């Protein structure tokens, strides 16, 4: 009967399902648009407020490892909520719909970015951020790309562990597949800011990869 055995899950692993359910419920189209945004804000705010409270501690080095674990779970819970949202729709109508969520999620991304910048030495934080980004990419669409360079420069891939890079590849893959964006710009932006091109001009364009860029 039990394909997922509750007895073998951790409390948080199981709560992730509940957060995902929250995402599904908030994004029901029959709910008025404005109310959906409010509900999303309400759902995200406890996690954001808690993150803010932790980050406001003066001596960041004094933060207990348990608190790092807590931060990691808070970020993952945000990712789980966003997983419940419908996938980004590239059609015009779809883009308009997806934009509904932009603001609360962008605020959230900024909060996560701060945590990553401070605690990127912790593998569980990096893992939680990867988890959240992958989930959020589904509903946010190309808008998330704006943030990828910042996440990279904030140490998302600061580990030399092949495992972490391999775990990140599906995200890159997802971006290329879903949004048909040549991600090389993201990489270039993070390493060569002078190549920066506005995201809006990149969409659906496959810019030629210049060998000179790498020299």
């Amino acid at each position: 009967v039990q394909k997922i055995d509750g007895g073998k899950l951790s409390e948080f692993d199981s709560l992730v399902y509940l957060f995902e359910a929250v995402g599904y419920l908030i994004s029901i189209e029959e709910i008025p648009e404005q109310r959906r945004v409010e509900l999303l804000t309400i759902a995200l705010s406890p996690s954001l407020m808690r993150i803010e409270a932790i980050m406001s501690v003066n001596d960041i080095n004094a933060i207990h490892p348990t608190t790092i674990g807590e931060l990691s779970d808070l970020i993952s819970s945000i990712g789980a909520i966003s997983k419940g949202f419908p996938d980004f729709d590239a059609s015009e109508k779809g883009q308009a719909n997806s934009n509904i969520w932009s603001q609360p999620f962008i605020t959230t991304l900024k909060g996560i970015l701060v945590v990553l910048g401070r605690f990127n030495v912790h593998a569980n934080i990096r893992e939680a951020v990867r988890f959240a980004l992958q989930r959020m990419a589904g509903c946010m669409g190309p808008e998330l790309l704006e943030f990828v360079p910042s996440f990279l420069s904030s140490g998302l891939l600061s580990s030399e562990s092949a495992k972490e890079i391999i775990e990140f590849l599906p995200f890159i893959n997802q971006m290329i597949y879903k949004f048909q964006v040549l991600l090389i710009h993201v990489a270039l932006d993070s390493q060569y800011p002078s190549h920066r091109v506005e995201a809006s001009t990149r969409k659906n364009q496959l810019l030629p990869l210049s060998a000179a860029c790498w020299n």
Partner: protein
Amino acid sequence: VSPVVQIFSLPMDELKTAIELAMITVDPALKEQAMQYCNSIKALPNGWEICLQTAETNQYFLLTSAPEIRFFCFQVLEETLRHRYQSLDQNQRLLLRKTFWKWTAEHLQEKFPYFLKMKLFVLIIVLFKNEYPAAWPTFFDELYEILQGGRTRCIKSFLQICTTIDEEVVCQYIQRSPEELAKNTVIKDTMRDHAIPRLLETWHSIFITYRSNASIAKRCLVLFGLYVSWIDIGLVLKDGFHTTLYECFGNDELKNAACECLGNIVLKGMKPSDKLDLIHGLDVIPFLSNLRIVGDEEFEEQIAKLINNIGMELCDSYENPASTDEEKFRIIAMLDNLFPLLLKYLANEYDDTTSALFPFLSGYLLLLKRVRRMSTQGISNDNLRSLLEVLAIKMKYDEDEEYGMGDGEDESLFMDVRRSLKVHLESISTIDESLFTNCVCDVVCRTFDSWKAGNQSGLKWSDAELAIYLLYGFVEAKVSHGPPVFILENGSVSPLGIMLSKLMESGISEYPHPAVSTIYFEVLIRYAKFFEQRQDLIPIALQSFLDSRGLFHSIKSLRLRVNYLFLRFVKALRPVLARYTESILSVIQVFCVDVAFTCHKA
């Protein structure tokens, strides 16, 4: 020759010392050297001779290590006989034969330890396999000499050697090469013509004489059961032997062996007509029907195995292309007589007894399916209905066992049996789907109605759990294998829809037992689409998720499982949940707020 061997001048003495050292020394280097020496002896072409002499020459029984020394020597001898027999010349083979009989005679005088005795008998029979019949036609004459000692030990040894013949030559559980099988066939053919009649006569005579000595009588019963598969059954069943067997059913020490022996007799391969005559001639079904057993778990399991054998043989005979219509008619009649026994032992309290009947039950249901397909007559619905009821009762948890407690082994065994029972239940559905539907619907609705009527103290948790479990498995038993149907084509509510409505309206989800809650939520997920058609019941379902029955249950494992099930429920019914969203969020926001508290401080 190994250098290790060369340093010893007297191999026999040194072998003895090396075996003792290998057994007792705690010095790993010395132990290694001793074992190396033993192995080098084993590998020598004449190693068997050293072992034969080592086992033979010393008065080892005065030493505590003597049996082990002999055992090692016996192992080397066995290996030689099995794998290097061709390297032995005629004189050496003769020497081995004489020595083995000599040791047997020693054992009859002074009892060997069990493991040594068994190994010695294996040696004799491996040699027998190599020599009989051509080079050792007098084997059985020599074997009978053992009996001349007259003591019970002599008789037991004689019977044990006969058992070893079965193990080495006949037993089908041992994998054998085609050459060995061919050799064994020659041995069996020769034995049938020259040895079996006298052997059977001897066993019968021993059995009759030593009925009061359970140890000997049991060995005889085992032998009859082992040999009956390949010898003339008339030699076993002569002089009304089956009546003697039935008498043993009244003897506590012999009844299990007698039952097993009878089971093997029933299994003997033969034409369908002969099989029917055999079962009829044994009068076994009436005998078992009149048998009264009180509180003997092991014996009941043996009886169940016997019934299984009889039933399987009848079903196989029915399927046999050689069966005539008349014989098939007889088989159906015999199965009808056997059916009450099937039912009785399936319903046995112990799952091992129930499980022993599963092969017969499968065969029986398959046969019913065929019979039904050919004609609507012949099989009564009452049989199927009784079977359904018994299977359903057996699917119930044991009320006395504490649910979810202990190491889970008992529960896991129960779940295995339950799965098998469910498969059989589903087979009944393929025979008569409407009967199955009515029976299940009846049990399920009766339980829910009972709860709703306020009989809350009278309803056991195992009954409540069973009703919901039957509802859970209901769709799997449907012949159509399509998605669950809640509303029939004529617009009326389907039996499944009725059961689900009653599940929700009865409030049985409030039964205060985790087993009930667990299966209840699984049902909600499996039949989530039902709520699209009965949207008025959604609040009841949501309420159960959102209170102490579900997300706030006191049992952690259950609570965590419900988190996942709730997600699936929401995903399945998302389009119709809009109006409940805010109420749901207001209840579960506590998890969003307390994620840190729940996971890091609890």
